[in-house]
């Protein structure tokens, strides 16, 4: 289709969708209203099961099956990154550019900051995972923090060091096993909010590391063929 035709179709569809959405929006209950029957029903259950963070209670206990699907999506997409971004023949690391990722290239300030932030970030991640049943946060949020933390090493300028501390097979196995543990916890031993937070933290952290590793690899590749 020509650009013009496409915009015409979009104009029709966009105006229609806007109209439909607006019609629906003005029929919604008033903003800030008090009627949330489902949410209210979950409160006593969370208290009864000693999970002061009601959201954790919903995610890992009352509606754990949702989270099961979510964790499997995460695992599937990490595997997909490994699969789709696999290096095929005729692609090798850019030998000429490799020195550029060595530690020498970076400002001292950046390197020191990177190393200084690393332990703080890891501790924060662990804290958020461990207190997920109680305070805001949980396995997912903590896992993201943990997964990002490792990349602070990269800040300090040392891509080879980063590559050393994240052996891909280990993270693959760890992620898959954590997902497996979650399947078992969600379907067989319901209500283990703390344990679930821990395995989710492990899985999310590994998945983040794995996915980012694959993207890093691609960003550092050059094409050798043709």
């Amino acid at each position, binding site marked *: 289709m020509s650009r013009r035709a496409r915009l015409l179709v979009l104009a029709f569809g966009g105006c229609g969708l806007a109209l439909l959405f607006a019609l629906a929006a003005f029929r919604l209950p008033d903003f800030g209203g008090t009627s949330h029957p489902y949410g209210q029903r979950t409160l006593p259950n969370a208290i009864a099961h000693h999970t002061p963070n009601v959201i954790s209670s919903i995610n890992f206990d009352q509606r754990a099956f949702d989270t099961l699907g979510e964790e499997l999506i995460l695992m599937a997409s990490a595997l997909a990154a490994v699969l789709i971004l696999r290096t095929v023949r005729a692609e090798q690391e850019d030998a000429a550019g490799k020195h550029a990722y060595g530690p020498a290239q970076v400002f001292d300030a950046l390197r020191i900051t990177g190393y200084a932030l690393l332990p703080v970030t890891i501790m924060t991640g662990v804290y958020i995972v461990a207190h997920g049943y109680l305070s805001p*946060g949980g396995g*997912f*949020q903590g896992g993201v923090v943990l*997964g*990002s933390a490792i990349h602070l090493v990269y800040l300090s300028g040392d891509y080879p060091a980063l590559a050393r501390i994240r052996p891909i097979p280990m993270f693959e196995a760890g992620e898959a096993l954590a997902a497996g543990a979650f399947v078992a916890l969600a379907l067989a031993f319901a209500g283990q909010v703390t344990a679930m937070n821990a395995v989710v933290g492990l899985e999310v952290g590994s998945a983040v590391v794995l996915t*980012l590793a694959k*993207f890093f690899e*691609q960003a550092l590749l050059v094409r050798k063929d043709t």
Partner: protein
Amino acid sequence: MSDALIVAALLLTAFMATAVVLTRDPARQAIVLSGYGLVLAVLFVVLQAPDVAMSQTGVGTVVVPLIVMLAVHAIRRHHTREPDERDDS
């Protein structure tokens, strides 16, 4: 005051979402996307959802923009059809 905060945060969100869409160069867009992530985090706290705000911070301001940035760099190496191949990264 709460209502004013909510309105302000929502308007800011809509504004930044539009800005992300209208930033056509992906390398620049990644930075705007990071800012959009921050605004969403603030909006979520204003809407009394600190858990969601934390998630959004991790994902929206760090992981996804970083992936975008890495993807842009990976793609730049394979651009064969763009006449002015810049390498100012």
